[in-house]
């Protein structure tokens, strides 16, 4: 063993291993280290946000007050939403990008490694600042994750300013990360790695990065306007001074709708990697997949009005936003059909990543359908602001984005750590997660249709039993994630010598699977030369 280390050092003369101690993580510019940091950060925030969700569900176990007062309930729903969107899904996707993009395109590292370090290290500060509001004497942000004015301006608690700066910091972090990703994909591809030869995950992230660059500045502008309204005597959103609160919704959703594609497009990429591997077939309709991703992103920029049907928008605008929204179902449908066609007649095996990918395929489609229902103007008048909306976006965010992240972790964990996870525990984790997830969110559809509004700490008696299913489901889901935590930690910190092959999965194709497992600290110092379409079967 020591011999091989000596050998390694002899061959790679400038290959210094990672530095020791905490400073390794603080000063690292290594894309794998930064990817790991992002993923651990996301994992921690996942449990923080998850505990908040469980507090919310516990309060909703019965009508009346169960555990917490309504003020704290509002803070919990708000913080849960903010943390899950900005602190879990986005950093996890960024972590996957950092780890996998250089490995997939044959680059030695990200193009701008120091910027990369900075974009990660802004996040812990941003979220410490956000979480610190919970311990202040005034209430923490309590206006919902969409922070509509005037709830967040005229009536916002003092801590809103902390929230605004937290959003600014994580916005800067996302913009720098996207900048890095775009430059890496444009300039660092190995020779022979043409655009139409890129792994779909890389394509998904490229499009996402452009979306982030386009809309994160708008979010920054939006919270800056809030800050100005709160402290600098402007009135962007205050009708008393000539502003307009519905302007807030336009600005916010101009960011907010593309944001949902930011949360899911990298996940689409992950699924497009996993399904071919476990079906042992190449991805059906690669070009269509790429074009569909681009079209989804472009359409995503011009449909924000579907969040505002009941604000009194003119009929023509409502019709336009409705049809444009429906149109997105076409490229999304193409993707779903292509994944199904990839599975069709494949020799399929059901390892945990594939299970999560299939779970995604079924349940994300369900979430898509409820999205179509919400996109219909006449139907939306009934469904808006009800639990139906909550059910919809949890189906696309939990069984959508989160499932793709979990699938990605199972898929690449052996590659990262060099240790196979426990397949048996993985399967248990999957089934508990699926059962918990459906038990939690399926009844919410019916609660919403029956008229239960979202964001309330109390409800009418007739909603009790369905709310109790939700709460039980939520605790099953939460418990299942402890298994996930155990699996990850066991695989990462296992002392016994790993014997995972380079390819890991029998059907895995792509540059990352040519590297040994675990991946050495420095890879592709000399770029590999790609001569064939390497993803062909």
């Amino acid at each position, binding site marked *: 063993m020591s011999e091989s280390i000596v050998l390694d050092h002899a061959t790679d003369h400038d290959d210094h291993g990672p530095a020791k101690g905490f400073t390794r993580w603080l000063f690292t510019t290594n894309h794998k280290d930064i990817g790991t940091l992002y993923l651990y950060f996301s994992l921690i925030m996942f449990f923080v946000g998850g505990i908040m969700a469980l507090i919310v569900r516990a309060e909703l176990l019965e009508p009346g007050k169960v555990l917490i007062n309504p003020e704290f309930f509002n803070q919990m729903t708000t913080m849960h939403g903010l943390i899950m969107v900005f602190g879990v899904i986005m950093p996890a996707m960024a972590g996957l990008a950092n780890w996998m993009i250089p490995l997939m395109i044959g680059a*030695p590292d990200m*193009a*701008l490694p120091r910027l990369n370090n900075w974009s990660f290290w802004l996040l812990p500060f941003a979220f410490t600042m956000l979480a610190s509001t919970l311990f202040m004497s005034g209430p923490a942000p309590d206006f919902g994750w969409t922070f509509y004015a005037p709830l967040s301006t005229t009536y916002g608690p003092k801590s809103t300013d902390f929230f605004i700066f937290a959003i600014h910091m994580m916005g800067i972090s996302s*913009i720098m990360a996207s*900048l890095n990703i*775009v*430059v890496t994909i*444009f*300039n*660092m591809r190995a020779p022979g790695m043409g655009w139409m030869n890129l792994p779909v995950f890389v394509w998904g992230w490229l499009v996402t990065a452009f979306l982030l*660059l*386009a*809309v*994160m*500045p*708008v979010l*920054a*502008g*939006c919270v800056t*306007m809030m800050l100005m309204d709160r402290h600098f*005597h402007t*009135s*962007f959103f205050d*009708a*008393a*001074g*000539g502003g*307009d609160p*519905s*302007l807030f919704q*336009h*600005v916010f959703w*101009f960011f907010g709708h593309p944001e949902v594609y930011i949360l899911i497009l990298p996940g689409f990429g992950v699924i497009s990697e996993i399904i071919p591997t476990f079906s042992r077939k190449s991805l059906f309709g690669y070009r269509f997949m790429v074009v569909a991703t681009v079209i989804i992103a472009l359409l995503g920029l011009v449909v924000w009005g579907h969040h505002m049907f009941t604000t*009194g*928008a*003119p*009929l023509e605008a409502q019709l336009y936003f409705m049809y444009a929204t429906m149109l997105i179902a076409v490229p999304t449908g193409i993707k779903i059909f292509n994944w199904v066609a990839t599975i069709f007649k494949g020799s399929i095996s059901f390892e945990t990543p594939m299970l999560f990918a299939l779970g995604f395929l079924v349940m994300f489609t369900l979430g898509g359908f409820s999205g179509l229902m919400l996109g219909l103007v006449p139907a939306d008048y009934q469904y808006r602001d009800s639990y139906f909306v909550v059910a919809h976006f949890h189906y696309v965010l939990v069984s959508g984005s989160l499932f793709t992240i979990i699938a990605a972790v199972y898929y690449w964990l052996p590659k990262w750590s060099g240790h196979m996870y426990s397949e048996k525990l993985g399967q248990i984790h999957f089934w508990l997660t699926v059962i918990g997830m459906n038990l939690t969110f399926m009844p919410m559809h019916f609660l919403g249709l029956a008229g239960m509004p979202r964001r309330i700490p109390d409800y009418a008696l007739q909603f009790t039993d369905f709310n109790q299913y939700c709460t039980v489901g939520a605790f099953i889901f939460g418990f299942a994630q402890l298994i996930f935590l155990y699996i990850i930690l066991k695989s990462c910190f296992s002392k016994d010598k790993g014997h995972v092959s380079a390819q890991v999965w029998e059907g895995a194709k792509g540059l990352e699977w040519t590297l040994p497992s675990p991946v050495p600290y420095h890879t592709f110092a*000399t*770029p590999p030369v790609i001569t064939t379409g390497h993803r062909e079967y």
Partner: protein
Amino acid sequence: MNTKIPATKNNKRLITILVCGVIFMFGFCYMLVPLYNIVCKQIGFNGKSANSATLVNPNMQVDTSRTIKVDFSTTMHGNLNFKFIPLQRHIEVHPGERKLIYFYAENKTGKDITVQAIPSITPNDAARFLKKTECFCFTQQYFFKGEKADMPVYFFIDPAVPKETKEMTLSYTLFDETEFIKKQKHFTKGRIDL
């Protein structure tokens, strides 16, 4: 890597382009504000077309074949202690016919105060056809402690209003403007002080 130096140059160019894009989008966010106001004014959304004066087309014909019922409603914003009500709950007008109506306002806040009424008109498809030649809502209004007044609105409905419009609502929300007082004379034009 033998292409290292050109790659760095490419990086710089690409980064410059992307950073410019980011700055542009930040500016675009602020550009949405005037853009929004222009669009709202065009379509009459949120009373944006009803808070400035329009001129009457001298050739305008009164369309006596149609009658539109116009309802008036008022709201006080927040805890503003004012009595603010229309003298008539609703009136019937023919398109093209000019009308004068009054709103009664009484300052019960116990101090001098500047307020402004912000209009809103429904239904949205007809909103831009309700036009005002004069209205107390065009400017901020100054009220002494305990002052009461009837405040005028001159309006007409453009005959081009959609055929299916039978009923419209003109509503005002009265805002406390203490934070946003404009430098102008205390504006009370047309008011009947009581």
